[in-house]
């Protein structure tokens, strides 16, 4: 790989670490759970981009398969954490608990898009 291309990929990889750090800051700061879930979802997407970039940098484009797997895991993980935070467990599908300020959650009406 020629030197300008390699420099390009090095600079791009280092430049991608900055938004990853910002997402981590939001995941630590975020006052609500949903802020943290959103920040980690975006961190996972940037991880996939980092995997693709470093795969090209080290001359191993086979690492894109790892990127596909991690994108899948990120998506499923976000939905699993959402389900856990709503129901308190990954297994049971009991009634939805009340809202955190005490008001009861309204039931889903027919015709409401779930």
């Amino acid at each position, binding site marked *: 790989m020629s030197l*300008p*291309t390699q420099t*390009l990929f090095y600079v*791009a990889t280092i*430049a*991608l670490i*900055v*938004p*990853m*750090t*910002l*997402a981590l*800051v*939001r995941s630590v*700061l975020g*006052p*609500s*759970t*949903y*802020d943290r*879930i*959103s*920040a980690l*979802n*975006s961190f996972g*997407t*940037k991880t*996939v*981009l980092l995997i*693709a*970039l470093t795969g*090209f940098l080290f001359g191993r*484009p086979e690492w*894109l*398969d790892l*990127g*596909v797997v991690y*994108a*899948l895991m*990120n*998506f499923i993980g*976000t*939905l699993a954490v*959402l389900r856990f*935070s*709503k129901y308190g467990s990954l297994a049971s599908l009991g009634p939805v608990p009340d*809202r*955190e*300020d005490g*008001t009861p*959650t309204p039931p889903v009406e027919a015709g409401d898009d779930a």
Partner: protein
Amino acid sequence: MTLALEIIGSIFLFGGIVFCTIGGIGLVRLPDFYSRCHAAGMTDSAGAGGVLVGLCFFAPPLVIVKLLTILVFIWLSSTVSTHALVKAAYARGLRLEQPRVRDWVKPAPSDAAEEPPDTERGVAEEEE
């Protein structure tokens, strides 16, 4: 020819990284959860699009297929998870902090009762 392709690829690549950085700054600086979800969505759609399309210009054809597959999957899955997240947060009572426009999901107040503006932070108060 190869140099021209590499220049175009690097433009897309850095455009994607600029969008990722703007999304990251938005994640830290915006005041409200729903605004931050928009910033995160910008990272997923334009940031990932720019980076992966930019990498296509450096790769043999099989790798281009893999990159575009990852891109399409990221676009579909991030849209779905952002929608699920925002809908779950709204259903659990996380309201807009300082609504400057009307909250279209909440039903409009009647003309008789004039409600004060909703300035509580919803579930954020419980976390502190």
